[in-house]
């Protein structure tokens, strides 16, 4: 056990920079104050989001409790958190446990592979626990107060919270361990890891949506019967991920019934833990260390192929960015997920409508075809911009360089040009995502292809702005010091800030469009105004980005 705690302590210190903070407090008050300011800004941003989220929860609680289905709100919260941890947990587990730089070092220590695996998994668990707290606490507290729940409710909620990440994270770990153990001895494992990772995310999404669609086929009489009982819908709605229903039943049921569900929730976690521990004790290193080996037969390059096509520095750096992303499973899964999911999200309604009759589905698609196409175009462009800007390609472009950044500063290329190459790289991923999202909208929702095309053009303008904002954040506070690629891209706050600011930008344009609808009747004119505003912001943002690049100075 001492090995487990020693490794965990080391990982936590390294991950959260605790030693650096301590050292700065003692030796460099200026750096410490800077850290405090960054922490305070992050806390302020977090509190602002938490406040808005709490208001939403409060409004929803009034609706649900008024309708006699108050605990449905709890169910939605648990369902969302569990599915989210399962979805993102797969990415984090792959990055932290299987593609970490320290695997080689840790494998030389006189500790069992199971111990290393569990200490790393605990580190992931702690961060997921913190995220769960932020999402769950407002729901539990607001519901508890409004429904006059007793102390026992909060105690049970605290116990359940401690186990909330367990089931999805352990499922993600089992999937990741088996998958990495399987591909560990294959020749093209990096590519397989990228394809497998992306396919896994798509599968989770499809499985979740298919289960939800099945629910819509539930006998209407059963739903009516459930509605007549307080909180009767939980088991029906929770069927898409049963542990979520167990958690809610454990919370709201009295006496032994509640304890039974609580034990079921904890029991499943414990059973999965045993399975994970067993798998890890057998094959963890096979998957983690195989990344360090070269199984491929040496590919000797012929002399005639020594010189590749000559490129300009800008193009060379752009190509290098793409090659790096495509050869790193962690970078690829995080950056390219949007391209795949953009399409998947838009075709998901097909699964839902598959359960409907032909006339019903035609009615749904007909609504979109008959709607004002200017408004559909604007809305679709907004969706494309949001999905296109949630990838961390631009917001971690500089951070991902890590130690190589310092060598690149010795290149005879202006830093502005290096930033341009990163902008083009981030923009290319965002544009590809917008394209697949548009294609998905045409295929899955029956959007007019011409409308989707104009929406794509508008999104291209808007994505300049969101990419600029994302890159600007990384330029201002890059994270060069990291131990594994997951820390550089997934556990980098810049990607969260960029995503929130990009969404805010799109939301502000949406608000502007809404306000204009009240004063201007012509929707085409409104669309043109929005495009011009977006273009102006994008152009100004790009100019600011180049100015930031020209004046950028980083402390080695």
């Amino acid at each position, binding site marked *: 056990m001492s090995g487990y705690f020693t490794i965990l302590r080391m990982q936590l210190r390294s991950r959260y920079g605790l030693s650096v903070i301590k*050292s*700065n407090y003692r*030796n*460099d008050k*200026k*750096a410490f104050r800077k850290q405090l300011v960054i922490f305070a800004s992050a806390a302020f941003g977090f509190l602002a989001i938490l406040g808005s989220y709490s208001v939403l929860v409060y409004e929803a609680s009034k609706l649900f409790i008024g309708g006699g289905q108050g605990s449905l709100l709890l169910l939605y919260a648990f369902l969302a958190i569990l599915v989210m941890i399962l979805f993102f947990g797969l990415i984090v587990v792959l990055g932290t446990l299987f593609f970490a730089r320290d695997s080689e070092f840790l494998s030389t220590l006189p500790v069992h592979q199971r111990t290393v695996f569990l200490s790393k998994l605990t580190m992931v668990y702690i961060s997921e626990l913190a995220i769960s707290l932020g999402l769950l606490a407002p729901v539990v507290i607001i519901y508890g107060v409004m429904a006059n729940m007793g102390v026992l409710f909060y105690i049970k909620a605290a116990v359940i919270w401690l186990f909330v990440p367990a089931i999805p994270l352990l499922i993600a770990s089992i999937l990741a361990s088996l998958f990495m153990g399987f591909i560990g001895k294959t020749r093209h494992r990096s590519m397989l890891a990228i394809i497998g990772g992306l396919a896994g995310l798509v599968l989770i999404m499809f499985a979740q949506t298919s289960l939800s669609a099945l629910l819509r086929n539930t006998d209407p009489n059963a739903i009516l019967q459930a509605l007549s009982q307080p909180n009767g819908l939980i088991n029906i709605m929770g069927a898409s991920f049963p542990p979520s229903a167990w958690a809610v039943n454990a919370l709201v049921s009295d006496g032994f019934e509640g304890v039974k569900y609580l034990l079921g929730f904890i029991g499943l976690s414990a059973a999965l833990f045993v399975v994970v521990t067993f798998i890890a004790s057998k094959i963890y290193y096979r998957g983690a260390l195989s990344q360090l*080996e*070269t199984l*491929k037969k*040496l*590919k*000797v*390059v012929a*002399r005639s*192929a*020594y*010189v*590749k096509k*000559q*490129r*300009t*520095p800008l*193009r*060379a*750096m752009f190509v*290098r960015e793409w*090659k*790096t992303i495509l*050869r*790193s499973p962690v970078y690829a899964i995080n950056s390219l997920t949007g391209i795949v999911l953009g399409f998947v999200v838009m075709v998901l309604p097909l699964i839902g409508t598959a359960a409907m009759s032909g006339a019903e589905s035609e009615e749904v698609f007909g609504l979109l075809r008959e709607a004002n196409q200017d408004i559909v175009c604007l809305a679709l462009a907004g969706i494309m911009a949001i999905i296109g800007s949630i990838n961390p390609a631009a917001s971690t472009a500089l951070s991902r360089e*890590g*130690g*190589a950044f*310092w*060598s690149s*500063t*010795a*290149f*005879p*290329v*202006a830093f502005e040009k290096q930033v341009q190459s990163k902008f083009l790289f981030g923009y290319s991923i965002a544009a590809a995502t917008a394209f697949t999202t548009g294609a998905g909208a045409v295929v899955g929702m029956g959007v007019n292809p011409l409308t989707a095309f104009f929406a794509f053009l508008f999104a291209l303008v808007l994505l300049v702005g969101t990419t600029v904002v994302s890159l600007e954040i990384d330029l201002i506070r890059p994270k060069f010091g990291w131990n594994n690629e997951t820390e550089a891209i997934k556990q980098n706050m810049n990607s969260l800030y960029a995503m929130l600011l990009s969404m805010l930008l799109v939301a502000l344009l949406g608000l502007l469009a809404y306000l204009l609808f009240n004063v201007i009747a012509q929707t085409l004119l409104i669309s043109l105004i929005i495009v011009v505003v977006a273009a102006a912001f994008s152009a100004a943002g790009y100019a600011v980005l180049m100015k930031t690049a020209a004046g950028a*100075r980083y*402390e*080695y």
Partner: protein
Amino acid sequence: MIQIENVTKTYSKSKTKAVDDLSVQTRDGEIFGFIGPNGAGKTTTIKMLVGILKPDSGRIAINGINFEDSPIELKSIIGYVPDSHDIYDRLTGIEYLNFIGDIYSVPAKARKANIEKYLAMFNLEKAAGEIIRSYSHGMKQKIIVAAALMHEPQYWILDEPMTGLDPKSAHLLKQEMKAHCAKGNTVFFSTHVLEVVEHLCDRIGIIDDGKLIALGTLGELRSKAQNETSLENIFFKLTEEPEGGE
């Protein structure tokens, strides 16, 4: 000519000066060895020479060019080997060399000739098609050295270039350094291997606690260290704390 004039550098994380009022001037056609204990300020000085770090005060100019006025022009005449292997290791060896060739705008003919030359010299021909991440420590060092020299820079600024090289590769690199300087060019390098400095360098600078404590030919250093014969003894004599001193 490399001119370092009264250069001082303090890291914000530390109050002590990493480099303290350093002045060194190299001559055209010379191999200049820069030695000192760990943490003496060698790497900081070299990082300032190649533009990674900015001095707090003082002036650095290479071939009469400084970073404030013409950073791109200055960087293009330098070949730099860093002390770490933090490079783009998701590229193959040949991709990395071509990437550097693109960055330094090396014409195709010269690029081909130099890639062939350095891959053969370092025995990397078979590994050139592999991802750098899979290279051994020594192979990474070789590809970094090859990339640094590929654009035929006038000034070689090398931070511990021999680290990890096998004896044959180290020998060939030393021959290259001599041939480079014989054409009137300059090599400025740091190392901990005193035998290399003793046999290779025209002049030597010894840095300790950020300060230049000795500068000159081996003969000049000998006389400064009261006629100690080997560079090792000279080094120890000059870098050791005086009895009872701070």
